[in-house]
Structure formats: structure tokens, C-alpha cells
């Protein structure tokens, strides 16, 4: 019998809210885009910080507001459910170019009406040359811009085109003192300013912008109070009428004033969370330690008997639904990388308090329960784990994992706290960390983390080792020498490090250029007033107002480069069975294998274009011939083809692979990871903070893999790169404990911007109390070895049914049933059926 804490009945309201939210395709609305344009036109004489607050205030005064049926927590950025606003001050050209395709694209489509298109087309000309990305481009060294845009060596595109986001603000403070209190703080700071202070003007303007922004937020909430009152008057259902009256009362009081009860605290929280995402387009606005700052309000109501457990749970569930009401349109390329309308609002529960005591409370459990009641992508729920985490809490989290939504992610206090202390945080601040976005730790409300600053594809410098720094016919990297002349393994490894270090330098240039642009064109007074010590310093977050400043670009491809270099070491320099020239030729010929799908189309296009440029006539039959050769690999001489395939076989079958608990291979992976992390941490950003590396790709290992040719580990061209810090897909054959042991050997503490380890499980591994207990033991054992993060895909029945239908999509799907591991697609149909049935039976 499973005995799990805080199993609470779901309110009938919740499915109704969810159904209403997902009724239609999300829609792009123009209101914010038009209002910001209108305001900017009126404020050209003002300093930028005051233009920002004026625009924010103008938007909040006029943007349409809506209270949806059945809502207890109100406030929506768009009239349409899950709609999105646009932010032309950051960039706009990409959206204009995609107006006619955005509704039909495969990843994250958005409906856009003809009226909205016309409205936005009217507003866009004003922004020409004035956007954040225009300035960022102008700031960038030309070679950095080329490496980013033309050669895809790294992609800082997220902050180049959008707001930064990736922040946790002081929710606790707003709940306790309200925006009225924050305005008073700003006013006090202003009163203290000396007019002779050399920074007087900057500080004064910033504080004035804070006050104007807070006033606008208060006014916005009052608009909701008024609307709720009007709806209440018209409402005939007595129960709903009472709810609307309570909503009206809440919005008249918060977030202006301190929250008086749990419902007000929830409403106040929601206004903060919502409006941060109206001020700027940055995603990963992370609520952080929600269970901690909400707890006093819950406790007070519970102790006073003002609220039942079920009512409290319903309010939390309502917030969960609302977190999915916020949306963002990205360009088609980014949408592939962030597929699933990702907003990355990371909410974390459990862990230690600032004194090092366990902080798990009722709300920690109830947040996990909410994630079971509301099986939607938002929020990204995270669990902090330390040696003192109650077992019942781990079991609750494991029960959530078993549902197969990929939530929660587990984080290890025992490595994160020391690793961020090594970056200069105090012990108390480090103990109070939360997670931003995907996996990035920070002390909330004190940090400008610039997490997720760029993707750095570590396989690309490896490609350049084999081309001596050439890409697309241009010398873009250092000349590290012709590989055919290299005589030792060390020479190859050095060449890789040289290539990589050079592009890290360009990455730093690109990041800092973008960073400077945000400070000049898009400082954010509202966000900044809730991060220490912006008010004290009189500076926005973007100008360096935070106590802790970092830039965190994330690298990935460790497994591929490790396996590739190990293969070179063994086959070329130990066995002498393959030469570097042969390996290079084999990689250029994709190991003698054809290409398929989009990759094939792209290569056919490239070949056709270069033929046309060379003056050769390209007709249909030429295209057909190119296509056949590209897809079959038939263009290559048969003897060479056989040799290339043999080289791949030698790599696949005879070389050691990272992820199998082989000490030497894993320690080499550690060295490879350090070539990135330790090169990155040498650099500084404009706020004086350091660069700190992350090791995780979000889901960019797929689209960026699609731009990467074959690699020396035998990975075929344009296929995905290894995910996170885990082994390359399908190459770990010794089960989850061996994989975890391997990954734990990396120096994860240096990757203080976060690491990511995904593991896949069959639900039978989590069946019953005994399954949950063993699963928890697995997490704890990885964490004993100082692993930082772990998350799980539990393979669902639907996935397995899909794998039966589309085996080509699931070539590496491993299932473990009763201790027996197999590639699912290689099993006979009847065995597959047995396994599918077992996902439900749980034995």
C-alpha cells in the first residue's frame, strides 16, 4: 500500500480552468506593441530609464484586462488565453518576416489576425535602427558577429533578440510591505541623495522611474478590482458573485499594501509574476522559493481556521494554471530550440533555510500536489535535496516523477551551496539559493545572473580542428595545423583547446556587447526595484544594480568530444589502425552513410547553389542526381565507402565510451568539460561580474546538432548532440547507476551556472512503495557523489505505442522491465505488447 503525504482532492474548478485555457491555439496580440510605440514617440526627450517607466505605465493604463470564468486569481497579459504580447523595442524584423507562417509552423504555432498584422506593420517603422538588437549588433566585434550569425559557432540569440528575464525578485518583500512600501523605500533613498553626488542624475532618475512603475502597477490592480466589482454586480450565481467580490477586495488591496491572508498573498504573487513579463519579454522569470515566502500567510490562515487544506490547495492549483496563461512568441529557429511554448518559470521547494536547517513545510508538499493536479508545463517545478530532506518529501516527489511529465527536477544542496560560495556568495545567501530557468542556481532577489547567456556547441571547434580553422570556405578560427601532419594525441587535443578558446573569446565579446545594449536601451525599473541593491545603488539591474553579477553561457557536447578524442587516441595513436587523414575524409563523407530528411534537403540546396554560382546549369535532373547521391551516399567510391563505414564500426565497437563507469574514460570527460568551464571563468562582464559556465543544452542539442557535421565519435552528420552532461544517446549500456557514477566524476562545481543529467525510466521501476523508495535511493546516491542535478523521463504507455508505430523515431529507446534491458524497437511485437501492458500493471 502506498502511503504518500498530502494527497488532496482536486477541486472541480481546476479541470474547467485548464480546458478553457487550452481551447484554442494561442494568439499574438498587438496592444502592448502599439502602446509602447505610442509612449516612446511621446518621450523622446527623456532619459531612457524614465522612458521605460513611462512606457510601462502607459501600457498598464491601457492594455485590455480580462477576468476569465471560474478564476480565483486574476490578471492576464492578453485577452486570448495563452496569448502573447510583442516587444518591438527588443527586435521585430523576424516576427514581421514570419507573419504569414507563424500560425502554421510545426513548433509552437501562434494565430495572428490580419488586423494585428496591419497594426504592427504600422508601428514597426518607428523602431528601425532603434531596437536593442540593433545596438547589440553595432556593439559586437565583426568577427564575433560572423561567428554567431554566419557560422553558428555559438548562439547568444536569446538575449540578442529578447529581454533577458532569468531573474528571481523579492516576492517576499512585496507580500510583506506592498508596492507602497517599496515606493517609500525609493523615496527615502531619493531624499538621502546629495545633489552634488556625481551620480545624482542617474540615481534620481532611476528612483523616479521606480516610483512611477510601482504607481502604475497599483493602478493596474485597481482596474481589476473595478472590473471584478462590475462582474459581481451582474453575476446571478451567488457562489460566483461572492468569489468576484473577494477578487475585487483582493485587487483593491494588493499588491499595493501588505497581503492580509493567503488568498491576497496568492493574488499579490500573481501580479508580480505577470507584470515582470509585461515589462520585458525575457523568459525564465522564476518564482523561486514559493513554499518559503508564502508559508507565513498559509500558516496564519490555517492556525486561525480561516482556510481549509482543500481551499489552500485550490488557490495554489489556480496559480499553477495561471503560470500557463503567459506565453511568448519566438522566431522559428528559437522555437525549435525551446519547443513546447517554454516559459521556464522555475519554482523550487524544499532544501535548507539560511541557518542550514531543513525548510521543507506543508506548502512544499502541496506544490508537488499542485503539479499532479495541473499536469501542464508550467511552472518548472524543482526540488532541493540535502542530507536532511525528509524521506516522505522525497517519496512525494518520486510519485510526481512517476506520472511521466518530466517533473520535478532534483537539485543537490550539498554541491550547489559550496559551488556558488566559491563564486563569492555568503554562506547564508548560498543556503537560500533558488533555480532560474532550466537548471541555473542563484541567490534570488540579489542577482543579475545572465544565465543562459548563449549556447556553445563544443563539437564545432572539434570540426575546425579537422579543417584547420576553415568554415564555409573562410578562415574563421586559428590555424592549428593540418591534421594529417599531427603526430601525437596531445597535438590534436591542444588544437581543439586552441580553437575552442578562440571562440570562447568571441562569445564573451558577443555577450558583453549585448549586455551593454540592454543597459543603454532596455533598463527595467520595475524588475530592478525588487532586486537588491538596485534602490540602494540607484541603478537598474541592467546597469549593474545587483549585489551578485554573472554571465553564464552553457556548453554542451562533452560526451561526443570525449568519445571522439578517446577514439582518436586509441585508433590513431595506439592501434595505428586509422590515420587522421582517413578519419577526416570519413567524417567529410559522413562515414559513408547518406543523409536524410531536412539535412539532406539542406545539403542538396547548398551543392546546387555552389554549382549554380560556378556557372553550371542546375536543372531538375541535376537536382535529382545530387539528391540521390546525398541520401544514399552513393556518390562516394565503393571501396572508400566501405572503409569509412569500417572506421565508424571500429569507433562504435572497439573504443571506450563515456557513461559506462570506466574510470579512465570518465576522468578524460572531466578534462574535456574543464577545457570549457575553466576557459570561460577567466572573463568578466560589464557589471564587473565573472563569466561562469553551465553544462546543459536545454533542447538545443537537437537543432544545433542539425548544423554540425559528422564528429570523430562516429556521430553522423546533423544528428543530435549528446544531451546535457550525460553520455551520448544509446552508448551507456550499463544502466542508470553506472551512468550516474560516470557523470558524477565531472567537476560539476566549476559549472556553477548549472548542469543537467536526464535519465529515462520505465514506470515499473517506480512501482509501489518499494519502487519509489529505491528510486529515491538512486537520486540520493548520485547526490552523495556530488552530482548537481537530475531529472527523469518516465516512458509512458503513449510513448511506447508511438514507438511501435514509428520505430525509426525511437531507435535508442531502452526499456528495462524486471531488470531486463532491451532496445524497445528490436523486440518482437508480442514482447512489446507485454511491456506496454506492464507500464500499467506496475510489476
Amino acid at each position, binding site marked *: 500500500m502506498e502511503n504518500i503525504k498530502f494527497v488532496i482532492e482536486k477541486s472541480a474548478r481546476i479541470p474547467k480552468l485548464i480546458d478553457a485555457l487550452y481551447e484554442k491555439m494561442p494568439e499574438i496580440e498587438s496592444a502592448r506593441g502599439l502602446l509602447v510605440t505610442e509612449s516612446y514617440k511621446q518621450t523622446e526627450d527623456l532619459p531612457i530609464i524614465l522612458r521605460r517607466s513611462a512606457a510601462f505605465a502607459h501600457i498598464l493604463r491601457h492594455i485590455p484586462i480580462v477576468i476569465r470564468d471560474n478564476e480565483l486569481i486574476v490578471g492576464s497579459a492578453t485577452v486570448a488565453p495563452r496569448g502573447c504580447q510583442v516587444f518591438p523595442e527588443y527586435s521585430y524584423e523576424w516576427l514581421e518576416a514570419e507573419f504569414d507562417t507563424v500560425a502554421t509552423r510545426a513548433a509552437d504555432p501562434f494565430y495572428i489576425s490580419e488586423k494585428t498584422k496591419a497594426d504592427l506593420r504600422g508601428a514597426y517603422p518607428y523602431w528601425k535602427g532603434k531596437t536593442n538588437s540593433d545596438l547589440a549588433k553595432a556593439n559586437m566585434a565583426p568577427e564575433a558577429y560572423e561567428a554567431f550569425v554566419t557560422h553558428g559557432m555559438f548562439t547568444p540569440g536569446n538575449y540578442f533578440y529578447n529581454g533577458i528575464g532569468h531573474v528571481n525578485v523579492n516576492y517576499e518583500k512585496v507580500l510583506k510591505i506592498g508596492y507602497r512600501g517599496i515606493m517609500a523605500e525609493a523615496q527615502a533613498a531619493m531624499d538621502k541623495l546629495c545633489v552634488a553626488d556625481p551620480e545624482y542624475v542617474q540615481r534620481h532618475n532611476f528612483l523616479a522611474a521606480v516610483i512611477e512603475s510601482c504607481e502604475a502597477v497599483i493602478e493596474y490592480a485597481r482596474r481589476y478590482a473595478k472590473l471584478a466589482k462590475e462582474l459581481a454586480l451582474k453575476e446571478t450565481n451567488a457562489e460566483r458573485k461572492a468569489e468576484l467580490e473577494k477578487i475585487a477586495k483582493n485587487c483593491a488591496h494588493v499588491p499595493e499594501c501588505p497581503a492580509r491572508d493567503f488568498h491576497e498573498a496568492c493574488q499579490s504573487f500573481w501580479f508580480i509574476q505577470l507584470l515582470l513579463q509585461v515589462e520585458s519579454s525575457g523568459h525564465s522569470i522564476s518564482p523561486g522559493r514559493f513554499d518559503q515566502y508564502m508559508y507565513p500567510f498559509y500558516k496564519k490562515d490555517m492556525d486561525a481556521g480561516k482556510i481549509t487544506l482543500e481551499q489552500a490547495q485550490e488557490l495554489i492549483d489556480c496559480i499553477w494554471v495561471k503560470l500557463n496563461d503567459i506565453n511568448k512568441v519566438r522566431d522559428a529557429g528559437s522555437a525549435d530550440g525551446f519547443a513546447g511554448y517554454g516559459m521556464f518559470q522555475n519554482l523550487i521547494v524544499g532544501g535548507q533555510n539560511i541557518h542550514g536547517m531543513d525548510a521543507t513545510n506543508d506548502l512544499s508538499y502541496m506544490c508537488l500536489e499542485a503539479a499532479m493536479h495541473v499536469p501542464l508545463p508550467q511552472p518548472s517545478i524543482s526540488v532541493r535535496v540535502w542530507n536532511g530532506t525528509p524521506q516522505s518529501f522525497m517519496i512525494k516527489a518520486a510519485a510526481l516523477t512517476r506520472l511521466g511529465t518530466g517533473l520535478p527536477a532534483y537539485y543537490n544542496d550539498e554541491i550547489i551551496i559550496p559551488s556558488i560560495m566559491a563564486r563569492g556568495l555568503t554562506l547564508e545567501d548560498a543556503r537560500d539559493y533558488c533555480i532560474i530557468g532550466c537548471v541555473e542556481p542563484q541567490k534570488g532577489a540579489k542577482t543579475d545572473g545572465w544565465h543562459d547567456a548563449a549556447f556553445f556547441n563544443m563539437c564545432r571547434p572539434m570540426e575546425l580542428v579537422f579543417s584547420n580553422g576553415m568554415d564555409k570556405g573562410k578562415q574563421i578560427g586559428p590555424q592549428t595545423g593540418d591534421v594529417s601532419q599531427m603526430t601525437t594525441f596531445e597535438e590534436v587535443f591542444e588544437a581543439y583547446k586552441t580553437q575552442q578558446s578562440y571562440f570562447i573569446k568571441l562569445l564573451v565579446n558577443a555577450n558583453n556587447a549585448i549586455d551593454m545594449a540592454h543597459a543603454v536601451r532596455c533598463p527595467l525599473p520595475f524588475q530592478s526595484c525588487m532586486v537588491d541593491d538596485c534602490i540602494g545603488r540607484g541603478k537598474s539591474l541592467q546597469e549593474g544594480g545587483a549585489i551578485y553579477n554573472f554571465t553564464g553561457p552553457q556548453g554542451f557536447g562533452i560526451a561526443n568530444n570525449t568519445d571522439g578524442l578517446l577514439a582518436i587516441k586509441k585508433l590513431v595513436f595506439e592501434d595505428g589502425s586509422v590515420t587522421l587523414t582517413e578519419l577526416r575524409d570519413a567524417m567529410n563523407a559522413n562515414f559513408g552513410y547518406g543523409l536524410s530528411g531536412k539535412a539532406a534537403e539542406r545539403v542538396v540546396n547548398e551543392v546546387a547553389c555552389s554549382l549554380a554560382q560556378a556557372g553550371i546549369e542546375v536543372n531538375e535532373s541535376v537536382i535529382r542526381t545530387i539528391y540521390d547521391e546525398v541520401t544514399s551516399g552513393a556518390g562516394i567510391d565503393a571501396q572508400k565507402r566501405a572503409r569509412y563505414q569500417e572506421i565508424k564500426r571500429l569507433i562504435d565497437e572497439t573504443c571506450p565510451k563515456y557513461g559506462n*563507469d570506466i574510470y579512465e574514460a570518465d576522468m578524460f570527460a572531466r578534462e574535456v568539460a574543464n577545457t570549457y568551464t575553466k576557459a570561460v571563468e577567466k572573463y568578466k562582464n560589464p557589471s564587473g561580474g565573472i563569466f561562469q559556465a553551465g553544462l546543459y543544452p536545454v533542447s538545443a542539442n537537437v537543432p544545433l546538432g542539425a548544423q554540425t557535421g559528422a564528429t570523430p565519435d562516429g556521430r553522423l552528420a546533423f544528428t543530435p548532440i549528446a544531451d546535457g552532461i550525460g553520455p551520448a544517446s544509446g552508448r551507456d549500456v*550499463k*544502466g*542508470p*547507476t*553506472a551512468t550516474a*557514477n560516470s557523470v558524477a566524476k565531472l567537476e560539476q562545481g566549476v559549472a556553477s551556472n548549472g548542469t543537467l543529467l536526464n535519465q529515462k525510466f520505465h514506470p515499473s*521501476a517506480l*512501482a509501489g512503495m*518499494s*519502487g519509489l*523508495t*529505491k528510486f529515491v*535511493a*538512486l537520486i*540520493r*546516491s548520485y547526490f*552523495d*557523489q556530488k552530482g548537481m542535478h537530475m531529472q527523469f523521463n518516465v516512458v509512458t504507455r503513449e510513448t511506447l505505442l508511438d514507438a511501435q508505430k514509428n520505430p525509426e523515431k525511437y531507435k535508442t529507446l531502452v526499456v*528495462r*522491465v*524486471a*531488470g*531486463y534491458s*532491451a*532496445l524497445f524497437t*528490436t*523486440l*518482437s511485437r*508480442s*514482447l512489446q505488447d*507485454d*511491456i506496454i*501492458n506492464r507500464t500499467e*500493471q506496475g*510489476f
Partner: protein
Amino acid sequence: MDIYGTKGRIFNIQRFSIHDGPGIRTIVFFKGCFMRCAWCCNPESQSYEIQTMQENGKEKIVGRDVTVGELMPELLADENYYRRSGGGITLSGGEILGQPDFARDLLRACQENGLHTAVESTANAPYENIEKILPYLDLYLMDIKHMDSAKHKEFTAAGNERILENAKRLAQSGVQLIIRTPVVPGFNDTAEEIRAISKFAASLPGVREHHLLPYHRLGQDKYAGLDRNYALKGVEPPTQERMEYLLSVAEESGLKCQIGG
């Protein structure tokens, strides 16, 4: 005596095993078996000889000779997981009693390294072989497949007399003993058959648990790989309902019963 030098023949080591004894375990599969159970999911375990089989279209050599000392690093690699989960090492097969000296020294080395030890065995061997391993064993997971010797012989190529006799002696020895029964349709999946086994198990002093392991055919593809016929072709695994019914029958014995290991 150098226990680490003792040599034995195994065919697999499986880490993160969660259905073969308490906690997370690493299983060492011994090669060679005295019986030929029709449903065996590890047919490559039966012959003591090192052999080749087809797996996923490739040739694979089954069986290798190793010393205790060579095995220990891999068995210790998951020590963290054993400690956190109350797990350890399980020796399985094949029949581990076919290599009693190797089993003894391997168990002894595990205990010397602080690991919990278990065996999965049918105890179908001279009792002196069993006595060899008992000083180094924490848990005996013993299969009793059928109470009727003729039927036992029909499906496993061996009668059950020595098994039942050894079960009684094992129960006297003081080792923790759990009785396990693979539930195979057409062989022992009736209430009477399960009841008889459970009743016998309950009569053994010190035995408190009886586990029913539902037949599965996940080893079926291996028979083709060994160029052998699978005798139970077409036999469906028992349904969840059937297993729960048989569980309730087994529980009449007063033992703590469960489905799965």
C-alpha cells in the same frame, strides 16, 4: 587462503537490479544449471560451456571465467546505492550451487567489503554445497516451483524431493529464507498448486515471506538466438487480476506475500 584468486564462470553482471532482493542490487549470474525449466528467461545460463548466441543480429559470446578479485571492483562500484537503499549483491544463475567454492569465496569477499549478500537458488544440490555458503550469506531467495514431484520433473527436468528436503534443513540453519514461486500458466497457476506451496513455506520455521513472480516471456527472443525452441510459445503472462487472486490464496498461509521480487 586467497579467496580473491578463486575462479568461476559467469555470463552476466547486472547493476541496478531492483526485483531480486532488498534495495538496489548488483546481480552476478553464474553459468550452468542442473535444471531445464521450460519458462527459463535466461536459457544461455543453462549450459556450463562457454557458447555463442545471436543478439540483435550480432554474435555474442556467453560465459567467461573470472576470479573473485577481478569481479570485486565492479561489485563495489555501486556501494553508494546499496547503502542508500539497503541493497547489496545477489548471486543468481544458472544455479550458483553448481560452483559452490566460487560462490562461497565471492560471498565472503562481499561480506568482507561490508556488502549485504543474497543468493537466488533452487537449492537442488547436495546439502554440503549449501553449507559451504551459509556462513557468508545474509539472505537465501529460494525457488519452490511445485509441490508435485512428477509435474516438477515434467517442466524442469528434475524432481523436487531434494529441494523440499533442503528447504527444511535451510530453515533450521538460521539464514533468512524467502520462498519464491514463478507463476507459470499451465504449470502452477491454480489456487490448489499455489496454496500447497504457500502452506509448505509456512510450515518452515523462520520463513515469513512468500513471493509470487508472474511468468514473463522477455527471454523468448534468446531461444531463437541460441537456435533453440521455446516450449511455452503462445503462453500468455498471467493477468493482474489472476495474480491478485493467487496472492490472496497464498496469503491464507499467514505468510507475508507479494507479487514480484
